[in-house]
């Protein structure tokens, strides 16, 4: 029976867009888990993550990346761990074995979906539906924010690359978000091409 179950993309109606000025692509290959430090456990959680992955967890909206893993601030004393699924990597299992005594770890691999928006026009397209300041002065490499995009709650972050963004949202909003993003991209592209 198990081989009858096939994973289905949440972005089944999103045609990946790839132009010199803008690319939009779902990231289907991620394993994610959110974790929240228990009472008075923040320092212990930070020390454990530091020794396991060599990174300092941010206490303010930001992203940090280590070898094959990134952590995004997801609220006070909360983070989202993101990694490539690769050879059956399971972020929830991995973090639970490290943090079980000091944090609540919840799998987000299927509950949330991530889309990557990149290219020189990405900032301009995203700014049409996101109410925060996306100017590089305010939102630069490894910046992160929890906000909404076209009224859909997102956690978003910028990669080290100046024009590459990733947005994570609840899976059931994927189609609605993709609809907005593609409409906005199409409205932006010809005018500035």
């Amino acid at each position, binding site marked *: 029976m198990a081989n009858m179950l096939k994973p289905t993309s949440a972005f089944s109606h999103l045609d990946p867009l790839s132009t010199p000025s803008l690319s939009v692509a779902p990231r289907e290959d991620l394993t994610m888990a959110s974790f929240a430090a228990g009472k008075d456990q923040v320092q212990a959680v930070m020390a454990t993550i530091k020794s396991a992955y060599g990174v300092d967890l941010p206490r303010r909206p930001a992203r940090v990346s280590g070898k094959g893993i990134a952590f995004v601030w997801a*609220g006070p004393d909360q983070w989202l761990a993101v990694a490539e699924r690769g050879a059956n990597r399971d972020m929830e299992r991995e973090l639970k074995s490290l943090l079980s005594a000091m944090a609540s770890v919840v799998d987000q691999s299927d509950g949330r979906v991530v889309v990557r928006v990149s290219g020189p026009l990405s900032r301009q397209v995203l700014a049409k539906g996101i109410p925060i300041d996306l100017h590089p002065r305010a939102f630069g490499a490894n910046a992160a924010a929890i*906000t*909404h995009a076209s009224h859909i709650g997102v956690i978003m972050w910028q990669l080290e690359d100046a024009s590459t963004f990733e947005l994570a949202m609840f899976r059931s909003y994927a189609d609605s978000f993709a609809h907005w993003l593609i409409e906005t991209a199409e409205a932006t592209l010809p005018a500035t091409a």
Partner: protein
Amino acid sequence: MRIACPYCGERSLDEFIYSGDATVRRPDASAPTASEDYVKYVYERTNPPGMHRELWYHAAGCHAWLVVSRDISTHAISSVELAKDVALANNQAMKESA
């Protein structure tokens, strides 16, 4: 109106939910006057113009509860504190006065 969340920075009003007066304290439910105390606690507000201390919840952001000091006549915000810090300070003050 924009509120400067201590975590997220300045954000638009539509990310927040207003959650009432931040100065009322839940009365003692075992007091003989509990019934009247709770009516006052839940319903009675004088609502004067000028400075209010209000609870706001950053619902579309980091989910922090905030205590915002705001002049309701001008919308000028003079301070935004984490409700957690305010509650801890209140508890500490109550302990010291006890």
